[in-house]
């Protein structure tokens, strides 16, 4: 799962960001724009059948590969 998320994040970041650590900041650092966050969230919804709710969604959960992984694991369990 981690690799899938990582690949998806890398594809969203484009070719300039191939050196990406699992804890590297994506949103706070400005690498991932709001539209990309939405794209990523939509992909997670489709791929892992997660249902994000407006009042529980926080962009901080998308700030690194590890935090996304934690979010997905929490939602699935």
């Amino acid at each position: 799962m981690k690799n899938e998320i990582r690949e998806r994040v890398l594809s969203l970041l484009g070719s300039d960001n191939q050196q990406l650590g699992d804890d590297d900041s994506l949103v706070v650092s400005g690498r991932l724009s709001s539209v990309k966050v939405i794209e990523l969230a939509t992909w997670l919804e489709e791929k892992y059948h997660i249902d994000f709710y407006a009042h529980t969604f926080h962009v901080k959960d998308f700030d690194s590969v590890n935090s996304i992984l934690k979010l997905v694991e929490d939602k699935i369990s």
Partner: protein
Amino acid sequence: MLKNIFPIDQNPTIIYFAQRPFFKIILVLIFAFFMANTNIFPVLWRNVAIATVAVITFLPKYRYIILFCGMFCLLLNNLLIKEQPDWVLFRANYLFEIFRNNSDNYFGTAVIKYIDLALMIVISETLIFLVTYYNRFRIFRYPITLYICLIFSLILVAALAPLTKMQGFLLWSYIAVMNHYFWFVGYTLHESRFTNKRNFLLDYARYLPVWGFTALPYGKGSIYLQQVEAKNSEEFAVTQLKGIKLIWWAFILYCLLHLYYQFEDGFKMPKLMEALHDYNQGLHYPIWKAWTCLIDRFFRMMLELTVTGHFFVACCRMCGFRILRNTYKPLQARTIAEYWNRYNYYFKELLVEFFFYPTFFKFFKKMPKLRMFCTTLSAATFGNIIFHFLLLTPVMMSLGLGRAYRGFLPYILYAVILGISIGFSQLRSLEENKAQDKAVTSLMSSISVLLFYCVLCLFNSPYQDISIMNNFKFFGSLFGFKW
């Protein structure tokens, strides 16, 4: 580019020396030089900012309390010194000016502001408490919606209820203060839903931050500031060097802006608002004059926002917060959506956090394209309108809700066109991403985007005292039409 001549924040030797006391003094002196030779901040504000940065540079561990003290100095200054221009504290000071004209009691009117401020803090803290500890109730799960409803209810009461002059003034003055801090409280409310790691000192320091103040919170909320805060002396040195690099670039742009003002004065080109008044008098401009007037406004607005934003961000970085720039190479934008992302980052982020994400995860889950389009519309149009309408409190009080609405019509049109255009631009870029082979990078794309925003800025006026028809007449004259 000029700003990249000195990559000082990447040089290990410079970073090492930036952590030594002697070189810290030099950094503060350079910062003070650029601040002292510009008029972005009022004199006393600038002095407080320099002093705060100087103390933080040597005592970074006490950053929050120093920032809080800086904020307190600015707050006291507004109460005690009559001559100090205090537009920075309350944009709605115009409202107090109206009242003050009928009263010699400066201290009395100033005190009302502080009572309003205290009341605003009590009400917002109550809301924050309810959102944090009572979120099992549905109403407290959507604090921003609740807060917006509260403020609009107060506006309606103030505008429509049969109040005496004094009661009306007191209510409007409270609304003015609440409106001005609306998004600062909004960020705290927003963050309270997800964490209880709130730092009161930093939270209140950013209500009146030494790095500059508008109704738009530069640096977002305190949780975000803690995320981008320098955690050790090396990070602090790098952050401060980034601040110095940015303020040096901002200073160059500031000089260019003032050269531009000189050029503008010499050329005697009417400002857009003057031009619209000319149209109101029945005058009509030839095509070249209408275009020159519009292009002048577009570039002046862009340059002014860039310079102010750079100074604010540089000052914030000098305090140890590695926040992103407010304006980032807008001339390089290839799409309408990209320009919007680059032009005014903290405004865009505010709309994204409070309108874009909540709408996206609530509506049209089965229809991806409609979902994205409506989400964009909710932020760039609806959120944009709310943000700017709330700043019209003085107009609402002095001229009434109807006049404020009529004066606001051009901006509503602006926000609607902007939202629809960004929506389509985003849908288009999503499709291109999927194809992964159609990067739009031509010069023509950039020029088209700039042209679009240039024409649109004709309506980018949060309040005008003449009819929107004059904007349309001006628009017609851009293409040689006259009516």
